[in-house]
Structure formats: structure tokens, C-alpha cells
């Protein structure tokens, strides 16, 4: 049944109760004079029970207390029809009206979860139902003449009833005796529940304590009245007492309702807890949140310190958490082999397993979140570190290749060139012109090879960067550019190799792009240090509109910059030139 369908059904029941209640109460006036106060109290009892039942059924669709309370309320109104002037109606009402109290007992036993789980509670529930069922059968049989006495529509008189009941009196006493015993048992259960609870749990049990007292009080009074007073001395129960008892029942219905609403508030606090535990807070805060959510000021949270192989409490002291038992209820978050948190709380909260498990689920979620976040953070740190190491390794490798070129092939070519020069001198001024030409061609080839290797080495890793720093390297880039490049170098110190190299390669790539695509007439290169970051700006006065870095060598450059934890920003509006801003973190050497 959907929520809206349920609302419709409950609404219909409510309307039925609104109409049925006064009609039932009106029956009381058919055979006797009743004061308006008594009639008002009578209708109030039925209505309040039904209203409480409807609200519980609405808030707790799965909880049987709702339907039970509604049924109890209707049973109350059915009792009024015993005063009906229609004999058969009066008979039927008399047979079933006694169900009000047993149903009420079931409500009390099932509060607040709607289930009756403990063995003693079940025995009491079965006892109430069995006694009432037996009494129903006995009454149905014994009183059946009333249903067709003379004529079904004749007004039934007190005399007839008295006669019928007198015949039933011994059995009625047994019934009252049994129900009184059961209600005393119920009272004992409720008092035990209340005494063993503490704090919020105790206040949750208060409504049923009241209900138990009222129920048991009613039975005991009836028992005393029936059993201990002589039959001849029986006076009809005074109206005032009837009204007072009715008012007590109204109060009980209201108390049950408050109990349910309080339960709602508890669920609300759990929802708050889930929000508050978005990130796992420090232990003292977690403990305070749980105490608040569960209404248990004695609740303690212990954290497992894996490195120290011990538990600590909220104050950071190493402790041994209590064992689960009668004194404390203990809940472990994590697995038994790998506990993360241990929560020790008032065992009375076991009465509301839904609340505790909801709170535990919230904590579990937070713990799991924390673990996953820590895992992701660790992975990210590892990846970030390894990415930076890859860039550094790449730089080292490039530097090594450049040095190898310089120390190896370059040196040999230099020696070759000098040997050719020497040879030219050895040939003397009278040498064969063809040989001299050949020698000079060889020398030119060697010079070209030296230039080629220099160019190659510079592309691999510019030695000027290592030897003279970023400013000088950018200066040499500017010198080789085919258009004016103005370098403003505000660096006052050398920076880590990978930072200088990255800035250099970014600048080289940006210059290449600007020269190739922007149609710029001037490029500005600026470097400065701020907040331990190297800033590099490359701006041109070209046509702009380079709205993306894709498809240019800057994609690779971006990766390099990101690997060092830096940022790249490209600003390139149509007709307003292009500006590339790079920031690279560089810890002081």
C-alpha cells in the first residue's frame, strides 16, 4: 500500500470514528441517566485511543501498535452498546466489549517496536487473549437468552441483566481474578523495564508505565469490588470514579502518542548524526554526537590504535573496552579481527534495536568513508609523487644524454676539426689546390656536424639552463626567435632543475606556437617568484582566439606542469592576443 493509499484508509477510519464515537456514547443514555461529563469522558477515551492509533499507523506503517490501538478504541465504543435498548445489540456488545482491556494490554506489551519478543511478554499476551476468548465464549453462551428475550426490540431492563449476571457470577469472578493476575504480571514487566532503563530510554518507557498502572489499577479495583465486597453491598460504580478512570485512559493514549513522536525525534537525530558524520569527526566529537543522538549520556566510544595495538578513549587514554553483557551493551564497528571503533552504551537501548543500529550504520558509513578517503588520498599522493619523480628522471636522463653528446661525439668532432686545421697548416702555402679544397670541404662538414650536434643537444636539454640558469636560457630562446621577444627575468636565485627545465620547455613551446600561429609582432616573456611559486607569463600581441590547448604541444607541457603540482592558464580572446600563465611550486633549495 502506498503512503497516499494508506492516508486515505486511515482518513476513512478517522471519519468513521468521528461518527461512530458519539453514536456509541449516545447508547449510554438509552437505559440510564448519564451526566454530560461522563458522556464527554466516554467519547474522549475512544477517540484518543483511535487518534493515537491512527498517528502511529501513519508514522510507523509496519508497527502493529497502530492497528491495535485503533481496535482498542473501537472496542471501547462497542462497550457502550451494552446499554442499547435493542436486546440483540446489547447482547452482542456485552459479549465482545470486554476486549478493550486485553487489547490495551497487547499495546503495552508491544510498545514501542510493535513486536512482542520476550518469552514472559509473550506468555502474558497469550494469557490475556486466552482468558478473554474463554470469557467471550462463556458470555455468548450464558447470555444468549437476552438476545431474543420476549421480543428483540424490547427495552432490556436492569433486572434481566442482573439475573443473567448473577448466574454468571462465579465464572465472572474467575475471569476477573485471572485478568487481575495477568495485569499485575504486566505491571511488573513494565516497572522492571522502566527501572532498568536510564535517561532517554527511561522517559521512553514512561507512557507504558502509566498505561500499565491504569490497566492493572482498573482490574485490581474491579477484583476488589467483585470479590472482597459482599454481593449485597455492591453499589453501581460512582460516576466520578468512572470519569477519573476514563481521563486516565485519555492521558495514557496521549502519552503513547508522545512516545511515538519522541521516537520520530530520535530518528530525526539519527538523520542529523548522518549529516554530522559526513567526515569522521575526532573521537570526543563523535562520542558527543552519539550521546546526543541516542540520548545516552553514559555512551563511550573507543578507537583502535592499530600501530600501538590498543584502544584509546575519547580523552586519548589507553583503555580496555568493557565486554558486552548485562552492565554494558557493546557494539564493534569494523570486523572482530580488525576493529575500528567500539561503542559501549546503556544496555536499556537494546529495547530499541532500530535506533542503535541506525546510529551504528551512520558511524560505519563514516568510518568506511574515512577509510576510502584515506586510501584515495594515499593513492593520489603516491601517484603525484611518482609522476613528479618520472619528470625528474626524464630531466636527469635528458641532461645525461646532453652530457654524453658533449663529452663523446662532440669532443671527437672537435679533435677531428682541429686535426684538419693542423693538416691544412702542414700542407703549407704551396699545396695542391685540389687537396686544399678537399680539406676545407671536410673541415666545413666537421663544423656542420658540430653545429648539428649542438642543436640536437640543446633540444634534448639546453646546457645553458644548467650552466647559467633560467633567465639566461630564456634570453637565448629570445635571441634565436625571428621576432622581438622581450625577456623580463625577475628571478634572484636558481630553482630546482625540474622546475627550471619545465618553465624553459613551456616557454619554448609557447614561443613556437606564438611565432607559428598568432601573427604577433612582439612577445613578452616574464618570470618572477611569489609565494614560493615560479610564475611564467608568455603574452603576445597576435590575433588571439587560441581557445584551447589541444592539438598543440602545450598538452604535453600541461602534463609536465601538473606533474610538478603547477597550473597552466591560457587566455586568448579574439583580437586581444594570447597570454599563457604558468605557476610552478618550488620549495626553497
Amino acid at each position: 500500500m502506498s503512503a497516499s493509499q494508506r492516508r486515505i484508509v486511515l482518513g476513512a477510519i478517522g471519519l468513521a470514528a468521528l461518527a461512530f464515537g458519539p453514536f456509541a456514547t449516545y447508547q449510554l443514555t438509552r437505559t440510564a441517566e448519564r451526566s454530560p461529563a461522563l458522556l464527554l469522558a466516554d467519547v474522549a477515551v475512544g477517540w484518543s485511543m483511535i487518534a493515537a492509533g491512527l498517528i502511529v499507523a501513519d508514522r510507523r506503517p509496519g508497527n502493529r501498535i497502530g492497528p491495535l490501538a485503533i481496535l482498542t478504541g473501537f472496542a471501547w465504543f462497542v462497550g457502550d452498546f451494552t446499554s442499547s435498548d435493542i436486546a440483540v445489540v446489547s447482547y452482542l456488545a456485552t459479549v465482545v466489549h470486554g476486549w478493550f482491556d486485553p487489547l490495551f494490554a497487547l499495546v503495552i506489551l508491544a510498545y514501542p517496536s510493535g513486536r512482542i519478543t520476550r518469552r514472559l511478554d509473550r506468555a502474558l499476551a497469550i494469557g490475556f487473549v486466552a482468558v478473554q476468548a474463554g470469557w467471550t465464549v462463556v458470555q455468548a453462551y450464558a447470555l444468549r437468552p437476552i438476545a431474543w428475550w420476549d421480543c428483540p426490540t424490547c427495552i432490556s431492563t436492569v433486572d434481566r441483566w442482573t439475573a443473567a449476571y448473577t448466574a454468571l457470577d462465579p465464572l465472572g469472578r474467575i475471569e476477573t481474578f485471572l485478568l487481575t493476575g495477568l495485569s499485575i504480571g504486566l505491571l511488573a514487566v513494565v516497572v522492571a523495564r522502566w527501572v532498568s532503563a536510564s535517561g532517554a530510554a527511561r522517559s521512553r518507557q514512561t507512557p507504558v508505565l502509566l498505561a500499565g498502572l491504569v490497566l492493572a489499577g482498573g482490574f485490581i479495583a474491579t477484583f476488589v469490588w467483585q470479590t472482597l465486597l459482599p454481593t449485597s453491598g455492591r453499589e453501581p460504580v460512582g460516576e466520578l470514579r468512572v470519569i477519573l478512570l476514563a481521563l486516565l485512559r485519555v492521558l495514557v493514549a496521549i502519552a503513547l502518542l508522545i512516545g511515538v513522536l519522541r521516537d520520530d525525534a530520535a530518528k530525526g537525530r539519527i538523520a542529523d548524526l548522518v549529516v554530522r558524520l559526513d567526515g569522521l569527526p575526532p573521537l570526543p566529537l563523535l562520542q558527543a554526537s552519539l550521546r546526543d543522538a541516542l540520548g545516552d549520556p553514559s555512551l563511550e566510544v573507543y578507537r583502535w590504535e592499530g600501530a600501538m595495538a590498543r584502544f584509546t578513549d575519547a580523552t586519548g587514554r589507553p583503555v580496555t573496552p568493557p565486554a558486552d553483557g548485562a552492565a554494558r551493551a557493546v557494539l564493534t564497528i569494523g570486523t572482530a579481527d580488525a576493529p575500528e571503533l567500539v561503542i559501549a552504551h546503556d544496555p536499556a537501548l537494546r529495547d530499541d534495536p532500530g535506533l542503535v543500529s541506525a546510529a551504528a550504520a551512520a558511524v560505519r558509513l563514516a568510518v568506511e568513508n574515512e577509510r576510502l578517503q584515506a586510501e584515495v588520498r594515499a593513492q593520489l599522493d603516491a601517484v603525484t609523487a611518482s609522476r613528479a619523480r618520472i619528470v625528474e628522471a626524464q630531466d636527469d636522463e635528458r641532461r645525461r644524454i646532453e652530457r654524453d653528446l658533449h663529452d663523446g661525439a662532440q669532443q671527437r668532432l672537435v679533435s677531428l676539426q682541429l686535426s684538419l686545421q693542423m693538416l691544412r697548416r702542414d700542407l703549407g702555402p704551396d699545396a695542391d689546390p685540389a687537396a686544399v679544397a678537399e680539406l676545407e670541404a671536410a673541415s666545413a662538414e666537421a663544423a656542420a656536424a658540430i653545429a648539428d650536434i649542438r642543436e640536437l643537444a640543446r633540444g634534448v636539454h639546453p646546457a645553458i639552463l644548467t650552466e647559467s640558469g633560467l633567465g639566461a636560457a630564456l634570453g637565448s630562446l629570445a635571441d634565436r626567435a625571428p621576432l622581438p621577444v622581450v625577456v623580463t627575468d625577475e628571478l634572484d636565485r636558481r630553482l630546482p632543475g625540474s622546475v627550471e627545465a619545465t618553465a624553459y620547455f613551456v616557454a619554448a613551446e609557447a614561443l613556437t606556437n606564438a611565432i607559428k600561429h598568432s601573427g604577433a609582432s612582439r612577445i613578452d616573456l616574464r618570470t618572477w617568484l611569489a609565494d614560493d611559486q615560479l610564475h611564467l607569463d608568455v603574452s603576445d600581441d597576435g590575433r588571439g582566439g587560441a581557445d584551447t590547448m589541444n592539438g598543440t604541444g602545450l598538452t604535453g607541457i600541461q602534463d609536465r606542469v601538473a606533474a610538478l603540482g603547477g597550473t597552466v592558464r591560457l587566455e586568448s580572446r579574439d583580437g586581444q592576443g594570447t597570454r599563457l600563465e604558468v605557476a610552478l611550486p618550488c620549495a626553497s633549495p
Partner: protein
Amino acid sequence: MGPGPVTRPTILVIDDHGGFRATARRLLEHDGWSVIGEAVDGETGLAAAASLAPDVVLLDIGLPDVDGFVVAERLATGADAPWIVLISSRDPETYRERVRTSPAVAFLSKHELDGTALRSLLGLTAS
């Protein structure tokens, strides 16, 4: 300042590459220089310069022990300091700024080494 005009100026070659030193010696001797010593690194080069007092020191920048620029600074401190000519097989661009601020009088690419050109660069005319 450096030494006065001499007919056959003396020169000390400091370079860790044996091949280069040998070729440079032959080339310079041919072009009218007197190569009075060779050194393979900065420290021995400094010692050789102190004992030999050459007119010119041909000083490689990339030495295995001490950076050529540092050697140049130390060579230049003496009262009768030699002329220092820095050499490298790298692009002169690489060291432009540092050469400018060093006490060296010139920078040469190794493969362009030429005794005659060096003499005219230093104003040492051949007799």
C-alpha cells in the same frame, strides 16, 4: 694587466681531453706559441700556472674537478696574472653571461682554435 709584447708568447693548456691537448699543442706551436705546460684538471692547472707563469692560460670550462670559471677567478688573483682564454666545445651562448662577468679576456669554441687568430685577439703580433 697581462705581460708585454713577446716574440713567442707562452701558454698553458688546461683541459681534461688528451686528444684535444695534443692537437691544440701542435696547432699552437705551429702558429708561433710556446706551449709550456698542460694540465688535466683545475687544481693541477692552478699549480702549473703558479710555477710556470705563462702569458696565457687556455682554460676549458668543463673540468672534472673545479668549474672553469672558479679556476679563472683564482688565476686572476695573483699580481702577475696571466691572460685567461676560456674554451668549450659547447655553444658560446651557453656561457655568455658568465664569460662576461668572469676575469677571462676571451671565449673560444674549441673547434675554432687558431693560434694566429688568438695572437691578434690578444694584441700579440708575431715578430
